[in-house]
């Protein structure tokens, strides 16, 4: 049986080209192993071997994502491998993000199994652990032996298409898919052990992490709404006619900031919806139905509110990554605060 062909991706440091000063090097490919590849080959034994190594500077990769991805994928493809390994990146943030990004891209574009490894706090971990297998490593290169010991067997399993067990068994980061496996000890004993650790302040690992709660305490009510400046923010996708910023109808990667100074009413000629998640007919006829500019102008006139802010922010909340939504909001929340806004009306669909 022929050996499994593996291509490995590493950065400028592990390729022993240089440190931070060489982080801008462009991707290159070399036959055979470089640096940590030696340990991997040793661990693979006669089952697999690294046939080529792709090296890329962390800065270059992160600052030229599209270009770098394209180039590296071409390089990997040229070797026709059965398996792709990136890193391990330990706690190096940009390296971890690069590893996760490229492994995910290789998986999607080339359809071969991929694996990477990094420390649990590496930003790349949270970003990619649910889409690709990421082995949990120690937080520095001193943990290389440990990382290889976990990554090599898992890589072989993935390459062979074997059934992958639970995260605790195989050494990868929990990825949201629950898998059963048999522990050595029964649950009641594990419970007592866990409680003793918890009581003595020692670190313990829960067997089931509770879902993420991101609760925000509401602010106190606006004191005098008749004097307040109100801003409108929407995820209902209301944009100027023609969608000048090309906000996507789903999985929006951007938001728009639009000037409604002097606009009293949104009409079918001037505004439309970019949102792909609801029937657009009524919003296109009268976008006020989703972004109530007309009503707020009336309130302004009647002195019920102080004033409607001249800018509104819009994106499309259809399948938008939580991460993106958070990132957009951080930006315009700052702008709104700097502009002295007292309250925001958020409309969604």
């Amino acid at each position: 049986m022929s050996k499994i062909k593996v291509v490995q991706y590493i950065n400028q440091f592990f390729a022993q080209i240089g440190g931070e000063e060489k982080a801008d090097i462009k991707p290159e490919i070399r036959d055979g192993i470089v640096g940590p590849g030696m340990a991997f080959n040793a661990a693979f034994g006669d089952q697999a071997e690294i046939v080529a190594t792709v090296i890329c500077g962390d800065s270059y990769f992160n600052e030229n994502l599209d270009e770098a991805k394209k180039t590296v994928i071409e390089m990997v493809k040229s070797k026709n491998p059965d398996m792709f390994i990136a890193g391990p990146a330990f706690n190096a943030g940009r390296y971890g993000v690069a590893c996760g990004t490229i492994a995910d891209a290789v998986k999607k574009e080339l359809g071969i199994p991929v694996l990477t490894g990094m420390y649990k706090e590496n930003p790349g971990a949270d970003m990619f652990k649910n889409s690709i297998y990421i082995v949990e490593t120690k937080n520095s290169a001193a943990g290389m032996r440990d990382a290889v010991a976990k990554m090599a067997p898992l890589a072989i399993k993935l390459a062979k298409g074997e059934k992958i067990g639970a995260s605790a068994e195989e050494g990868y980061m929990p990825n949201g898919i629950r898998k059963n496996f048999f522990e050595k000890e029964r649950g009641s004993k594990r419970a007592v052990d866990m409680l003793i650790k918890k009581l003595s302040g020692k670190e313990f690992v829960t067997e089931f992490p509770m879902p993420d709660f991101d609760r925000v305490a509401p602010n106190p009510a606006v004191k005098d709404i008749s004097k307040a400046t109100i801003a409108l923010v929407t995820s209902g996708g209301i944009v100027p006619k023609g969608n000048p910023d090309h906000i996507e109808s789903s999985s929006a990667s951007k938001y728009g900031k639009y000037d409604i100074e002097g606009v009293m009413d949104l009409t079918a000629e001037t505004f439309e919806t970019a949102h792909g998640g609801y029937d657009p007919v009524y919003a296109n006829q009268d976008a006020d139905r989703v972004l109530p500019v007309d009503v707020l102008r009336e309130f302004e006139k009647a002195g019920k509110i102080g004033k409607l802010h001249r800018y509104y922010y819009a994106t499309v909340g259809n399948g938008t990554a939580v991460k993106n939504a958070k990132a957009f909001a951080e930006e315009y929340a700052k702008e709104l605060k700097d502009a002295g806004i007292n309250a925001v009306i958020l409309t969604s669909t």
Partner: protein
Amino acid sequence: MKLELGYINIKDIQFSNESKVENGTLFVNKDAIKALVLEDANIKSVDVDIARPGESVRITPVKDVIEPRVKVSGGGGMFPGVISKVDTVGSGRTHVLRGAAVVTTGKIVGFQEGIIDMTGEGAKYSPFSQTFNLVVVCQPIDGLKQHEHEHAVRMAGLKTAVYLGELAKALTPDEIETFETYSIRESVEKYPDLPKIGYIAMLQSQGLLHDTYVYGVDAKRTLTTLINPTEIMDGAIISGNCVSACDKNTTYHHLNNPVVHDLFARHGKDLIFAGMIITNENVYLADKERSSNWTAKLAEYLGLDGAIISQEGFGNPDTDLIMNCRKVEEKGIKTVIITDEYAGRDGSSQSLADAHVSANAVVTGGNANELITLPKLDKVIGDIGPVDKIAGGFDKNMNPDGSIQVELQAITGATNEMGFNCLSAR
């Protein structure tokens, strides 16, 4: 309270003219069991069979599993308030036919469930593939109502277990284990530096086929209370719960509560086993509030530093579990909760029906939705009705070779939430 458990190890089970235990073999007079069970006019006919570990035998649908035990000394009798009088149990000496079990089957409702496979893939998931089982298959009289049927089968199982247990009364045990509970004051005086740990056991209590009895009292009607952990070793808590095979606590589980055993094992070493609280899992929301408030109140009253909380069942008990956890943590008492999961067949769904940030220390008995394939076995004991009517079984789940695909849900005791098994998930 001090209780000695005298274990008589059972290594085989046989039918014979005379019921007795000899050299580790349990001999059973089939007719005597039948006569005993038929004392109940509600039972039309009964069959008794044997299933040994490793045999190609499937038992289904399983209602309850009970371990044969007998009080030798110390007051009261097994299963107080149900079989024996209500006298307090939990002290003196009790003999246990360790390795034997009485398994009751009976289709109380059409979808009655519970599979015990004595060999093959399924055997890995049920603790009762390792026990020498006396299976009691009851047929009710025609037209018997479901709750009367459940009662009849429950009593038949307990009576059989008591009958078999009696055989151990005069025997010399192979091993004796002693359990002693002390007052909190005594424990703290003796071990001033050790943390006080309590065990909070949640009992299923929602209605027909979902009930648990404490000294014969329906747990649904009880207020959260204290119980001495040795009392449960004498059958103070018995199961009337027979839906959701994987995570219901059979009477066997109550008798052999693993949390109780593991806490006793560590008492005086790295913890003080301060006490046991039992609470229920009613459907009515105000009852849940009342019970969980009471649980937290008692935990605080006992001065606990930490508590292990175990649950029983799926769905609304998750709400009780989280309420208990949250309220106990709010008292400054650290908790570990034991549960199981319904994360969907692919393992990607939300595992629990409720959640809270304070439940940060969880032990899981595994994902009950995971599919496994059970091989075709030579013999089926019980009701041979279609396995696809079992919760966890599903339409058209039989393969051409006779093997069947079921969710782990269908296997008796598979994802037990007292932490009885080694199965877990990540």
